[in-house]
């Protein structure tokens, strides 16, 4: 389905859209308060952008350095060309350790590779331990936001879900009560897990380690009890030096949730004694993005979600309307690169307002890339024929000033003289909720001519 249809449905569903919009705007406002608190905010963004751009320009070297240093620390490093290979590698590691039950913290990369169904089909139990992810997992739906996976769900609905799956009281919807129930439930999962899987927020070439950030502590609980930790990362998650983390950890939580820092920012350098630490580094199309001068800056992305929170379209249409692992502005660039046929409406789910570009902590020129993606899709011949034709006709009219003047006069005449029921027919999408402008009898150029003739 197109984004437009799904968005329309989301908006038509009572007041969910308005509530969703207010919730995310609130997060955006918290982000603003954090930016106010950091006078050097723009310098931080500039530094972050420069660090990422430099890293991308020397990515093979830094990946090699990371691998070397990680191995020195006793980390087992694996490489996956695509999502399928990533899943096979993870499964193979788990099999070798006789793992039955896995706990997993939030990792957009594992979502992108569809790891959960792959493992479940092979008989493993996978428990997502981030509260929001656990909620959507129990409801059997995808997350709708990369940082706030359950932002589209009302507390009553969480209550219903937990009543069904965790045995909470019917009709209970108090967030504290429900969170406590989830705490007890997930605590059991942590204690019974055979292995823990995490994502990687930042991998550091200089040290061979990586950082995982959470507020809940679920990543750490998941990997500090079992003897096996598998960390999955996209190859763009690298930074050159530990000092670079100073920049990124100052920007990440402020941009994502409007906090100065996440509760936990754990640095992993090698396995703990008697345990194993594996890192799976994944390409899955990132190389293709790196090759493209127009879109390579999107590899700067640190998956903060600020662009989603600020996007007036995302807030009102909900993450599911994008039908993409990563939705919103950044997703509307990443998804069409990978699967243009499936996601060609996404760059058009946008007014090019530029708010996303201005909040992005790593200064991705998001709205310019969305604009470029529209043209890119046309060049791949993915865009609908009829719109292109009407645009060509319009451009043709604009190339002939005399024809343009005539067309304008005719259109204005029609607007002034056609009966209302014809103008505001169901075919007129503009007219559903808006009046059309009043058509003047004279155009500007006619008035200007007259005025000058008078003078």
């Amino acid at each position: 389905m197109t984004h437009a249809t799904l968005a329309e449905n989301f908006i038509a569903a009572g007041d969910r859209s308005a509530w969703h919009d207010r919730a995310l705007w609130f997060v955006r406002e918290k982000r603003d308060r954090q930016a106010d608190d950091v006078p050097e905010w723009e310098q931080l963004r500039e530094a972050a952008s420069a660090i990422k751009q430099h890293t991308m320009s020397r990515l093979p070297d830094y990946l090699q350095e990371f691998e070397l240093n990680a191995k020195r620390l006793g980390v087992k490093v694996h490489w996956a060309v695509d999502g399928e290979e990533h899943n096979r590698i993870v499964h193979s590691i788990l099999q070798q350790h006789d793992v039955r039950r896995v706990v997993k913290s939030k990792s957009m990369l594992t979502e992108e590779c569809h790891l959960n169904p792959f493992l479940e089909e092979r008989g493993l139990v996978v428990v997502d331990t981030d509260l929001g992810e656990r909620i959507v997992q129990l409801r059997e739906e995808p997350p709708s936001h990369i940082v706030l996976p359950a932002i589209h769900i009302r507390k009553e609905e969480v209550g219903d879900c937990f009543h069904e799956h965790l045995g909470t009281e019917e009709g209970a919807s108090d967030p504290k009560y429900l969170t406590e129930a989830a705490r007890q439930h997930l605590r059991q999962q942590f204690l019974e897990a055979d292995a823990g899987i995490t994502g990687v927020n930042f991998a550091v070439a200089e040290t061979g380690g990586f950082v995982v950030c959470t507020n809940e502590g679920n990543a750490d609980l998941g990997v500090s009890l079992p003897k096996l930790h598998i960390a999955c990362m996209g190859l763009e998650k690298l930074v050159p030096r530990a000092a670079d983390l100073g920049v990124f950890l100052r920007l990440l939580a402020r941009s994502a949730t409007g906090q100065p820092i996440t509760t936990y920012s754990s640095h992993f350098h090698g396995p703990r004694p008697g345990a194993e630490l594996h890192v799976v580094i994944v390409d899955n199309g990132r190389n293709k993005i790196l090759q493209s001068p127009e879109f390579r800056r999107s590899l700067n992305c640190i998956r903060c979600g600020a662009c989603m929170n600020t996007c007036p379209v995302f807030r009102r249409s909900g993450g599911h309307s994008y039908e993409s692992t990563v939705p919103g502005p950044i997703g509307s660039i990443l998804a069409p690169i990978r699967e243009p046929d499936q996601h060609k409406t996404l760059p058009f789910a946008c007014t090019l307002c530029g708010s996303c570009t201005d909040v992005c902590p790593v200064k991705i020129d998001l709205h310019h890339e969305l604009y470029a993606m529209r043209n890119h899709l046309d060049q791949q011949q993915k865009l609908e024929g009829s719109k292109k034709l009407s645009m060509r006709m319009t451009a043709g009219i604009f190339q002939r000033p005399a024809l343009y003047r005539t067309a304008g006069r005719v259109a204005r005449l029609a607007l002034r003289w056609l009966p209302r029921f014809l103008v505001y027919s169901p075919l007129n999408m503009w007219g559903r909720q808006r009046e059309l402008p009043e058509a003047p009898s004279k155009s500007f150029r006619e008035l200007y001519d007259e005025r000058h003739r008078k003078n």
Partner: protein
Amino acid sequence: MPANSRTQIFTALHAALPQSSPLPDLPAEGPWKIFKDPYTRFVSMVESVGGTCTRAATSADANRLLADLTPYKEAVVRCSLVPNVGDSTFDLDSVADPHELHDVDFAVLPGEFGVAENGAIWVTDNGIPHRVLYFLPQHLSIVIPAAQIVHNMHEAYARITPQQHAWSGFISGPSKTADIEQSLVIGAHGARSLTVIAVEAI
């Protein structure tokens, strides 16, 4: 086949590389915000993230603070890894499997220094037999030397070497979540409360 995939990825990367661009210098004393009174800022940040921070002149004072805390008083199973602060109701050295620590109600643990800008504390697994102690107990107290407060994250990174520890990290406040209708709940999966004690005598 891992070797082939690695080669494939590197070959493609080398072919795709954009023009080189410089890596910026990040001096510890850059245009980064510093505070007139870092300790006061640190305290207010710890409080803003749902924790508390109190100053204690000596370890004895720290113990008095703990003794007044309800979760500490009510704790049945306690342990401490801070010399002279708190106590242990069991022999932590004899615990081989971290799963055994599932019923710890209160843990008193060390932190190396605090970060004023965000109320975070740098902790490592140095001398910590099970890192899970920072996450599994119901309530936590982290003891730091009161004089060890840096202004910001850049200063923090200038003084740490995370690669020397299998696990290290920043901890800011108790665990929390707002995943249910953006309603903030303190005490998600990690500690339900965090009591920071800044001891002057350390």
